[in-house]
């Protein structure tokens, strides 16, 4: 086994309950995004683009979709003889076996996996953010500071800072205090949930944490505060650029809409830092004689004959003549029939919106920071006179 300088561990375990019917049968990282991607494509692509070719994907919830999506790793250039992408579910040791108790426990249970590559560093990632980041620069910073742990932070508006884990640092970036969702934040450096640890050091703390039966075995709640208390060298690495947590319906919708905004920092077309995805083998999409397209992203395999405005249309979508889709996300293999009106909505994959059905309502601005997005679950079929109101969610069947 060839040694690897840095191994990435991707925490893809969460069910993502806040995404409701969309994650009923699919783990959040496997959620479609941006016309042809899945959320996890961003983290996988960042990893390989950063020169890190060994990545463990920790998951215990609905791994099929993820397992088959990642497959042999080839779309991300992760089909390596030595290294590559590995799905790591919990497993049975000799007589006992247990599910992952928390983020730290998930890594703890996979210490043997990491040790096989004898890495100096471990990069901990989560699979539910949309961003482009060169982790190798963060690693360079970690080495330069001779840090034990480096945490990526992003500057957030002070009024939003109390929603995040906030790092309070010295001028050189050394963290002297970590506050989880502070009422009165002292800084605007929010943790992005991306950590680099010197592996020997992390291993020590993971083993200690596992012995502590009061611990929740969580990085944010236990490992990071514990290391800080012990006086380890912990640094904040400042990232600037587009970064978005897509953990809620509203933020998932916003992140998709950002792709349509020429002012947005998220530039998918940049050839120096491609985002890879598994290819769908669909023909080009067809725009029909009756179609009106006004600011849209449209992926392959579609047949579009309706009116599309400020929307993201995924692979294999059919929009019939006379249908209107505005400010919406239409996931793969969906059929929008004529006369249907979709506005501020997310249509799950494989759904069918029948003739003249209305989904969602026009909106000018979010309410308490949340857009009222109507959601139609995967595979749902709706017929008139069905009307789905703003913010309403109709259940998925498989």
């Amino acid at each position, binding site marked *: 086994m060839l040694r690897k300088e840095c191994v990435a561990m991707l925490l893809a375990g969460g069910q993502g309950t806040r995404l409701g019917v969309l994650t009923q049968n699919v783990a959040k990282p496997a959620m479609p995004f941006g016309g042809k991607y899945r959320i996890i494509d961003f983290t996988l692509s960042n990893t390989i683009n950063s020169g890190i070719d060994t990545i463990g994907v920790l998951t215990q919830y609905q791994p099929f979709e993820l397992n088959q999506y990642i497959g042999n790793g*080839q779309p991300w250039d992760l089909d390596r003889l030595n290294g590559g992408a590995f799905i790591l579910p919990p497993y049975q040791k000799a007589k006992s076996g247990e599910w992952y108790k928390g983020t730290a426990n998930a890594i703890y249970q996979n210490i043997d996996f990491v040790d096989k590559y004898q890495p100096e560093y471990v990069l901990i990632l989560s699979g539910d953010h949309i961003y482009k980041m060169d982790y190798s620069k963060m690693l360079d910073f970690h080495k330069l500071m001779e840090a034990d742990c480096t945490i990526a932070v992003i500057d957030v508006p002070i009024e939003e800072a109390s929603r995040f884990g906030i790092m309070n640092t010295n001028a050189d970036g050394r963290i002297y205090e970590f506050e989880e969702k502070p009422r009165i934040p002292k800084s605007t450096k929010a943790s992005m949930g991306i950590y680099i640890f010197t592996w020997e050091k992390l291993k020590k703390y993971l083993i200690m944490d596992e012995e502590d039966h009061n611990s929740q075995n969580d990085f944010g709640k236990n490992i990071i505060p514990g290391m800080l208390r012990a006086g380890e060298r912990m640094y904040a690495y400042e990232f600037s650029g587009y970064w978005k947590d897509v953990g809620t319906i509203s933020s998932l919708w916003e992140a998709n809409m950002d792709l349509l905004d020429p002012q947005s920092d998220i530039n*998918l077309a940049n050839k120096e830092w491609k*985002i*890879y995805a598994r290819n769908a083998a669909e023909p080009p*999409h067809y725009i029909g*004689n*009756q179609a009106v397209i006004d600011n849209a*992203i449209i992926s*392959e395999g579609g047949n579009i004959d309706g009116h599309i405005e400020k929307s993201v249309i995924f692979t294999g979508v059919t929009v019939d003549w006379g249908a209107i889709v505005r400010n919406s996300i239409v996931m793969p293999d969906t059929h929008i029939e004529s006369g249907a009106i979709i506005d501020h909505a997310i249509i799950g994959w494989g759904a069918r919106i029948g003739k003249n059905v209305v989904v969602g309502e026009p909106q000018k601005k979010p309410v308490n920071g949340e857009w009222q997005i109507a959601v139609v679950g995967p595979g749902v079929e709706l017929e008139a006179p069905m009307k789905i109101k703003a913010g309403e969610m109709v259940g998925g069947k498989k």
Partner: protein
Amino acid sequence: MNTKMMSVLFASGNESKLNELTIHRTTASLPFGGRYRLVDFALSNLVNSNITRIGIITRNNYSSLMDHIRMGRDWDLNRKNSGIAVFPPFVLNTSREVYKGKIEAIYTILDYIKKSPEDYVVVSNCNIAANIDFVKVLATHLEKKADVTVLCHTARINSSRRVIIKKDESGFIKDLHFEETPSDQDYLISLNIYIIKKDLLVEYVENAYSRGLVDFEKDILFKEVENGRLYAYELQGYAAIVDDVKTYYAESMKLLERGVREQLFDGENKIYTKVKDSVPTVYGSSCKVINSLIADGCVINGTVENSILFRNVRIKEGAVVRNSIIMEDGVVMEKSTLAYAITDKHVIIRENRQISGFLTYPIVIVKNKVV
């Protein structure tokens, strides 16, 4: 092993009549249908029919083909024991002459064919776009106890030197001949795709080669008609034979019909191509697009009508593209108009240009040209 068929493909064949489109490439690597090369249809049909041992015979300009195929990984053909073998010219031909016809071409790789464990061979040109299930064709071939099964379809003759088939009620071929003149009437036309038992193919080719014969159709098939064991398998659904600029343009434009696309692309048997990791296409607020086939990675701010755009094409504000085919990385700058044109890869049309061909005579703009 359970695989019964292998395949021999001819990458070249119509370069002379495809003019500017095949200066730098074989017919097999001619872009078609917005994101494909012609060879993609042959390779995908074979893979979808579980045929994974594929020998491709090239004659010249094969580097674009090699680059496209890359050991076959996009077709899942990078196999240990089978997969794609590309035979460049000269390799087995000590006289350093390019092969003269299919018979000589097959003869140079007879060793490869004989060593393969499969019992049946699909022999095909690479200038056909169609969705073919060779498992069904083989089943019919076996059921009919045919010597050679010739795939064909019913269509008008829209180019010269098409092979015309006459068959009896049982489907066996009674006559085969070349037809040089186009017609407005439907004929049964050979697609030049055959299934033959391997031993028989070897026998045909060894016999013909030793007599100095070169033309597979004329010197073997036409003569075999009299034995009555050539079976005509008529393909239902869309099939295109691309052998000159006119048929290239006409067959491309047919893809704007939904029914044609469904026959070619839908269903279980997908058409695969080289993965390029393009982003989805972005339409701006000022665009106006109708009746067009648009591949990934385009940015469209102008007008596009009745056209096919390949990957990563840019149509700027005020530009108008009508009845045209724009290949990969093409750019049409502000306020230019393009009609009845085929622009090869990476062509740039600068601002305020007006370029127009005619329906029956589309203008071709060669690769990398800045107009």
